[in-house]
């Protein structure tokens, strides 16, 4: 099979892997590299559970071919905490009770991170808009919005 060698940075680590052209980014991350924090809720670009950050922007990794990440920088949920130290968003999600089942959480946190990187002081409306591609069936989003507000304050300190 015509495997292609790609190089990319994942959570600040360099990777060189051979992938088949039809392999999806989400499968590369989950199946080949074993990082199962990235979830699959639909496989059709509708739920945001598979959200990762690629060169500063969120993508649904179920809609991206792995070969296209050649030369790019990817962040998954596993790349957020610094050792034992949680990222301020992870901390605020814990403190605000923004996590129930947790299946949407990795994608939610990454979308929130991309949002705050671009807009450090979002209004609740802007947060809702920024997270509108991430479905959560448990929380009703209320505490998630609060958690993002809290983290934004923390990050701006």
């Amino acid at each position: 099979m015509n495997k292609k060698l790609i190089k990319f940075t994942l959570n600040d680590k360099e990777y060189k892997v051979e992938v088949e052209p039809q392999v999806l980014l989400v499968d590369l991350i989950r199946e080949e590299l074993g990082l199962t924090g990235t979830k699959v809720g639909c496989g059709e670009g509708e739920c945001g559970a598979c959200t990762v950050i690629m060169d500063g922007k969120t993508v649904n990794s179920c809609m991206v071919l792995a070969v296209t990440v050649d030369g790019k920088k990817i962040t998954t949920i596993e790349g957020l905490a610094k050792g034992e130290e949680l990222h301020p968003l992870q901390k605020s999600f814990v403190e605000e009770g923004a996590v129930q089942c947790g299946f949407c959480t990795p994608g939610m946190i990454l979308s929130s991170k991309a949002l705050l990187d671009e807009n450090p002081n979002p209004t609740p409306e802007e947060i809702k808009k920024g997270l509108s591609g991430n479905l959560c069936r448990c929380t009703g989003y209320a505490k998630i919005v609060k958690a993002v507000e809290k983290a934004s304050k923390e990050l701006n300190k």
Partner: protein
Amino acid sequence: MKKRGVGLANMWYGIGNTGLPNPASAYIELLDDGTVIVLTGCADIGQGSTTTLAQIAAEEMGVDIEDVRVVSADTGITPDAGATSASRQTYISGNAVKMAAKEAKTILVETAARMLEVDEDSLILEDRKIVVKNDKDKFVKIKECLGKCRAEGKLTLGHGWFNPDVTALNPEDGQGKPYATYAFATQVAEVEVNTETGEVKVLKIFAAHDVGKAINPINVEGQIEGGCMIGVGFALMEQVKVDKGNIKTPNLATYLIPTAMDTPEIYPIIVEDPEVTGPFGAKGVGEPALIPTAAAIVNAIYDAVGVRITDLPVTPEKLLKEIKKERN
């Protein structure tokens, strides 16, 4: 034009299975170092039962929440707690855990009473100590007391099971006592209806829920908020379309659920009218959270535009049609 309206709705909800036995059980072991393991069949599906049960165990055993580990929902290890359904786990498994904790601490209390030379009745467990109720300077640490228990060859284990007090419904006239206790709630919704498009935006929901006792208030709020949004979906958008047995909305692009953009301001209000048979007065909240929402929204829509929809969901097309009818 955009018109606003306010609607109110009540609900009641019986905790546990209807008119059927539905017991739950739990085991507790108090370990040498004063930490606790709870074994329960109760499946936490994100609502937080593991944490709730840990709180109940910690309270009853007088230890810190960090001291309690809950092992749950593994039929090879944990006893049957029935289903995580019918908003029953806080009430039923909560009681089972409390009873197990009570049993586990009897040996402890009996031993401590001898150590302190007081009556067992005068002792309470708190802050990892066994304390004389009326003379709080007089106590023995749980860990020390456990040392004594072990030296005497005594283990500190407990089991408990609880079955709510119900009777079967008479098949002829449905008379009976289907539930041991009920949750109650009132929700008020404020909506804004766009009379040109038929679109409804829910602006605010005030959700007051009588949960008996909130074991973990922030988790109760989470249940209320999440429930409200399932209610918003039920009221305004959700519909599995079926044609000759075939589902025509088989993905999340065709079956729409609320997104963050649909979230109104939700004001969860916890009302505590304690249930004497519940663990620390608790009942349940999981399902009640969503029950009155759609009704409150529909009543609010009527208040806004004078149109009463009797067929859910209230899609923009449906509402617009009725608004036009009303105008003519």
